[in-house]
């Protein structure tokens, strides 16, 4: 696996968020843009993830969430998340991130705390990646260290599972 300097990644992401904020001046718009960007990254990243990690097919959503938290985060952010707070049907869970390299040194300006979802790109990535394996999920931050919470918590909800459609028919 190739690695890169975490600081250059942190600083690049930081300057991107800052520029978005300066250009649009609307915090909700910035959140939306970050989510869109993340989605585009996610639909491409999933192939690399599946190729490099060589994991087997996941049995159910629980398995997918575990693999995402342990293997996915480790591979791309060099940090692991823990999966907790499953709901009764097993369709919703929380990913707890204790340290996140994207938020090193960052302090949100006045008026943005609780409104700016700084790591919204991550939500988009997860949504895009899982969409490509036929899992429609919604993902958003409920706690964030930049909002002075103790940890960052991502709430992952499974909305639907797309049917496994193959591009060719069986009887050809």
């Amino acid at each position, binding site marked *: 696996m190739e690695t890169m300097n975490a600081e250059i990644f942190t600083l690049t992401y930081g300057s991107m968020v800052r520029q978005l904020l300066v250009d649009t001046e609307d915090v909700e718009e910035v959140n939306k843009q970050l989510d869109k960007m993340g989605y585009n990254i996610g639909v491409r990243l999933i192939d690399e993830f599946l190729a490099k990690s060589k994991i087997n097919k996941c049995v159910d959503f629980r398995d997918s969430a575990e693999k995402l938290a342990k293997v996915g985060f480790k591979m791309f952010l060099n940090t692991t998340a823990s999966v907790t707070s499953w709901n009764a049907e097993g369709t919703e869970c929380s990913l707890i991130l204790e340290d996140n390299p994207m938020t090193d040194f960052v*302090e949100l300006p006045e008026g943005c705390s609780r409104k700016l979802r700084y790591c919204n790109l991550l939500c988009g990535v997860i949504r895009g990646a899982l969409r490509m394996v036929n899992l429609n999920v919604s993902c958003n931050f409920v706690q964030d260290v930049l909002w002075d919470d103790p940890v960052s918590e991502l709430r992952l909800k499974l909305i639907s599972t797309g049917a496994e459609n193959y591009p060719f028919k069986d009887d050809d």
Partner: protein
Amino acid sequence: MTITCAAVVGRANNPLYLEACKPASDEEVLKYHYVVHCALDTVEEKVALRTQPGEIADSYLGMLYPTEDHKVYGYVSNTSIKFIFVVEEPAPKDEDMRALFKRFHAAFIDVVSNPFYEIGQPITSTSFDASVRTIVTTV
């Protein structure tokens, strides 16, 4: 050795940060501003003196000047950011001051790495305040 005041001054000699380390009245804070301002002249002198060919520039400037109840120490980074400590008796050792300035510089680097901090603006970060407090009290 107690540090009474820590200050960071920018490239254009604009104050970026000044913190009095024990609770001080407004008058005393003004006095510290004045002391740091006077120290800047000495900083410029020292910086001008040391740019001789063949000499490696040292960031640590040593004692800038003594007054009746305290001494002023300076350190300048390669980007012309000046760090000043106002220290009470007894006089600290050189190595101690160098170590302190290194930590001060490191805390400043963390602030600058924040994408939302505008270079040249006064520092309002609470985590920088906390780091400086730790540096100054664990002397």
